[in-house]
């Protein structure tokens, strides 16, 4: 044997490892090259290729967040191997955020559930193996139907609930209303929006008439003011935000960006200015900015209006009287201020703003007064501009009032429905209506007055009259039997046992309830489930949906299956229809007529015949080919205080105030309400819940937040850019890229300021206990200047204890959900859970 190490630097042992076996040496292609000495020709031989397959691209839309970017799914030889954004989809523009690319792994997740199962271990608990056994779909569906029929026979159908997370529209969560109507339960769709972002919708609803998320015209915007939204990490639509970021930051003039947050994230760092405010005080900043805008005369007179000129003495020699103005500390006569598209500006000044100086706000927020004034001036003087906010500002007991103060900035500066401003709200897609009506199939039981029961979550009750959903109340209400105990619950795309505040309460509640989980993956709900009806993953589904608000014009998309279901799973919507077919009475007839979700999709696409998409989509076939239907433009535009409607060629039709009220700002006054009519109606409720004097209730104002939990540090749980919908803790690819401040690679970290850490004897990398009266979890600390000394930050979604082999990998931290140390405290108007306000103490383990 030649001494290989002389020529190659290899040890013999290493070389043998590389080649696999000593005997393979000769075959490995050792040869002598006159010029180079001894060389290796081939250590590894590429295995012979299988049959070359055609790569097929199917159109679908992403499921990793609510935005619904169009995706091209690449499949070769029946295997999906790549996902990219669809180029001619207006929302995706050929791009995707990091999450979009994970879909491949989610399809082939090694922990996926392979078919319907039932529990055989009656004991339920975190550490109880459910001892699931596989069953047939027929048995699974019949089990549900039998339970539901039995409840109906006892007159207790209201004790059945469907608790839902991310619905995609007409063929899943969109089916549930009819199901509730026919079957007889008010709990047909207990949504998750109160642990999502309900406060921002409530604010828009009461001020400009749209209970919805807004569409912003970023690419034409020159100033962006972001309060508590991870614009470059999590704010929807993430891909659209980033695409626009590239435009905003390289166009002329470059869009200036100011970010308000409580810790440093990529958004704050990429911005021109970051204001690190105290948790829950964003409203104080916005009020002080409004104070500056009014007192320095920077408001938009064409949108808001102006003081009437003071009548001057006729005698030319008499001294001139001063014109009206907003002077700090002094009231104005509201009669002297004539408004155009707003209601209540002068009254707002008198009851709230006149004393809300930047110096006042500095004391509340710790942000220097000069920075507040500078941002106010920039924001008002740079047009067009957008002020937006999300949970950082609103997931507090004062969240709606914070949001009102922020949203009012858009009106004061005339950026509502303006080019480059808050462009508008989502227009509807031209779907055809189904030819079958559920009302025609309701039996006497369904129509009986006894069916009018309150919802178990308490939304729209006296306690939460304006809330859309109150998922975080379900477990405690059911445990207390107020208004009643639930018997059977089906979960779809949500797991409040992990994701609702004070989530541990759900463990007790789910012990008492027959639980049906529809997730195709293991999880905490699954651990407590009695029956598993596994859904298809999104790459295996046919489905349609409408866009997340983007630029206002309607966009809808379709999922066509890239592959047939790889396991024995069923699309949730089809499972609902199949259960419906097994409900006794006319309900069964209704669902037999509907047939399946594919019929619904095809029916609804008939609407495109009359209203073809700009991309030539006219029916189901062309829709499936293109993946998207859209019709530009957004129909309305406000410019210099005049509202215009698109007439087919341009924004040429001037709208009357009546038309604006009907089509653009459907508030009770038809104006942007700074004095909010809805809150006038609920003034007593506001007084009772927030301690605000009833006459002040209608105005944006400073309300001190109440912080849940107990301890000396604020605790926030932000969302990271890599947080795929629900599953990221179990995706090794996500664990390997978790960044940035959290440091990455396996664990997320608790961000802690050096001063806060030092006081507690905590060092970088220490394992610590985060605790309060609600519970305790453990995590690893990163001592860093990325957070305030009074605030610690731990990203949500990690700490799963039943999600699969990777989430539960040995030594993975944190040990539990951030919600185990989050008190169940809700903003009273919207019902939004107060995730970013809580207090904890942190100690070294």
């Amino acid at each position, binding site marked *: 044997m030649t001494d290989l190490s002389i020529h190659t630097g290899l040890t013999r042992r290493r070389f043998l490892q590389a080649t696999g076996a000593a005997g393979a040496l000769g075959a490995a292609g050792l040869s002598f090259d006159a010029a180079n000495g001894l060389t290796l020709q081939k250590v*590894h031989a590429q295995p012979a290729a299988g049959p070359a397959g055609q790569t097929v691209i199917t159109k679908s839309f992403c499921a990793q967040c609510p935005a619904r970017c169009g995706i091209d799914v690449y499949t070769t030889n029946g295997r999906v*191997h790549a996902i990219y954004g669809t180029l001619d989809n207006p929302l995706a523009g050929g791009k995707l955020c990091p999450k979009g690319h994970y879909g491949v792994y989610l399809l082939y997740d090694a922990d996926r559930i392979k078919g319907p199962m039932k529990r055989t271990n009656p004991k339920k608990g975190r550490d109880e193996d459910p001892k699931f056994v596989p069953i047939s779909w027929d048995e699974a569906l019949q089990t549900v139907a039998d339970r539901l029929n039995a409840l109906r026979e006892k007159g207790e159908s209201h004790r059945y609930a469907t608790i839902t997370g991310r619905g995609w529209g007409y063929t899943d969560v969109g089916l549930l209303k009819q199901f509730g109507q026919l079957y007889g339960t008010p709990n047909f769709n207990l949504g998750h929006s109160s642990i999502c972002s309900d406060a921002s919708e409530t604010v828009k609803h009461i001020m400009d008439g749209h209970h919805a998320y807004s569409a912003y015209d970023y690419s034409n915007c020159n100033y962006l003011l972001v309060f508590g939204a991870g614009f470059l990490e999590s704010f929807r639509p993430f891909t659209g935000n980033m695409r626009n970021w590239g435009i905003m930051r390289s166009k002329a003039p470059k869009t200036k960006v100011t970010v308000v947050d409580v810790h440093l994230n990529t958004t704050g760092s990429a911005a021109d200015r970051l204001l690190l405010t105290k948790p829950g005080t964003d409203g104080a900043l916005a009020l002080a900015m409004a104070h500056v805008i009014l007192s320095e005369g920077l408001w938009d007179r064409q949108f808001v209006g102006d003081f009437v000129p003071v009548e001057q003495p006729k005698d030319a020699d008499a001294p001139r009287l001063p014109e009206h103005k907003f002077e700090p500390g002094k009231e104005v006569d509201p009669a002297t201020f004539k408004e155009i598209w707003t209601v209540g500006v002068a009254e707002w000044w008198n009851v709230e703003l006149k004393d809300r100086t930047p110096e006042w706000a500095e004391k509340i927020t710790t942000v220097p007064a000069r920075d507040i004034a500078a941002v106010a001036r920039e924001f008002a003087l740079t047009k067009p501009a957008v002020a937006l906010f999300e949970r950082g500002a609103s997931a507090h007991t004062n969240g709606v009032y914070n949001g009102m103060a922020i949203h009012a900035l858009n009106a004061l500066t005339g950026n509502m429905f303006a080019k480059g401003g808050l462009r508008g709200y989502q227009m509807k897609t031209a779907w055809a209506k189904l030819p079958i009506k559920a009302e025609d199939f309701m039996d006497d039981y369904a129509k009986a007055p006894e069916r009018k029961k309150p919802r178990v979550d308490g939304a729209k009750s006296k306690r939460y009259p304006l809330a859309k959903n109150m998922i975080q109340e379900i477990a405690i209400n059911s445990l207390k039997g107020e208004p009643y105990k639930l018997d059977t619950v089906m979960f779809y795309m949500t797991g409040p046992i992990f994701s609702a505040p004070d989530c541990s309460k759900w463990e007790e509640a789910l012990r008492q309830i027959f639980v049906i989980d529809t997730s195709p993956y293991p999880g905490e709900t699954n651990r407590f489930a009695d029956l598993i009806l596994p859904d298809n993953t999104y790459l295996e589904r046919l489905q349609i949906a409408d866009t997340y608000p983007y630029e206002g014009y309607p966009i809808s998309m379709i999922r066509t299956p890239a592959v047939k279901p790889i396991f024995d799973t069923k699309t949730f919507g089809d499972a609902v229809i199949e259960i419906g077919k097994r409900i006794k009475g006319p309900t069964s007839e209704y669902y037999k007529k509907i047939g399946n979700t594919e019929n619904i999709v095809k029916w609804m696409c008939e609407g495109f015949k009359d209203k073809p998409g700009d991309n030539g989509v006219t029916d189901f076939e062309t829709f499936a080919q293109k993946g998207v239907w859209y019709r530009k433009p957004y129909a309305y535009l406000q410019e210099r205080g005049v509202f215009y409607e698109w007439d087919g060629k341009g924004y040429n039709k001037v709208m009357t105030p009546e038309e604006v009220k009907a089509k653009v700002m459907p508030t009770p006054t038809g104006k942007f309400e700074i004095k909010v009519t809805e809150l006038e109606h609920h003034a007593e409720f506001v007084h009772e819940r927030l301690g605000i004097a009833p006459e002040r209730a209608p105005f944006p104002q400073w309300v001190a937040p109440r912080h849940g939990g107990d301890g000396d540090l604020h605790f926030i749980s932000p969302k990271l850019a890599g947080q795929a919908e629900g599953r990221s803790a179990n995706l090794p690819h996500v664990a390997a890229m978790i960044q940035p401040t959290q440091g990455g690679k396996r664990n997320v970290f608790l961000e802690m300021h050096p001063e806060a850490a030092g006081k507690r004897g905590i060092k970088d990398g220490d394992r610590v206990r985060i605790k309060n009266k609600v519970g305790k979890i453990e995590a690893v600390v990163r001592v860093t200047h990325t957070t305030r000394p009074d605030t610690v930050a731990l990203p949500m979604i990690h700490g799963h204890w039943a999600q699969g082999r990777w989430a539960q990998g040995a030594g993975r931290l944190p040990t539990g959900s951030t919600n185990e140390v989050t008190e169940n405290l809700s903003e009273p108007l919207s019902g939004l859970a107060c995730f970013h306000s809580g207090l904890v103490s942190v100690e070294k383990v």
Partner: protein
Amino acid sequence: MAKWGMVIDLEKCVGCQACTIACGMENTRLPGEHWQDVIFFQEGTYPNTELKWFPRPCMHCENPSCVAVCPTRATYKTEEGQVLVDWERCIGCKYCMIACPYGVRFYTEEAPRYGGPDLKAVFPAADAHSWSPPWKAPQEDWKHGVGVQPHDVVSKCTFCYHRVSKAPKGTADLDPSNPVMREYTPACVVACSPGARFFGDLSNPNSEVNKQIANKNGVRLLDHLGNRPQVYYLTGVGGAIPNTHTTKA
């Protein structure tokens, strides 16, 4: 003959890591085997604190240290400028990993650091591949370091050789917004939402990459080392290159 190069505009980069993930999917990478990584670091003191990030593919150097040290000539530079590893010749000695000043090379047998079971063991290969996940990409070309690699070799960014090498001759710009060029464009460039990445022919004076380098003062990482990277960075006012002396291109 093209000389492929990349330009990354750090002012536009938002640190989302879609490049990392798209690359990992396109090239069937193991978790953490980030041929294209984004490195984060924090600077400054609260409240004037900043977070910085730096996207880092292989630099595909004109004068690559890795090629110089490879004992088996497994690592080589193609005529079109890519630095590649011939997995049929690689013996996994890791000399190249030590020689590379940019830390962009990966050894297959590194112990997983992501927590939970080793994906290689969960999706084992029946043949000489180091693993075989069901989402494995169809392309396979071990001579050019493309596909799922065998055990005991070093792997690295190929500038998406399997895509770029199919581009029509004479192509100046691989722009993913052009449907004709999209499928030939490297995955990280296709994925980049803010449009921070440009890819094209450095030998064509009219290419977009050359325009960007000339108009926006393109710089190269650790240029003083003399490796002459074919990846250029635009630092604008928002971006920064870490720990480096830079010279104008």
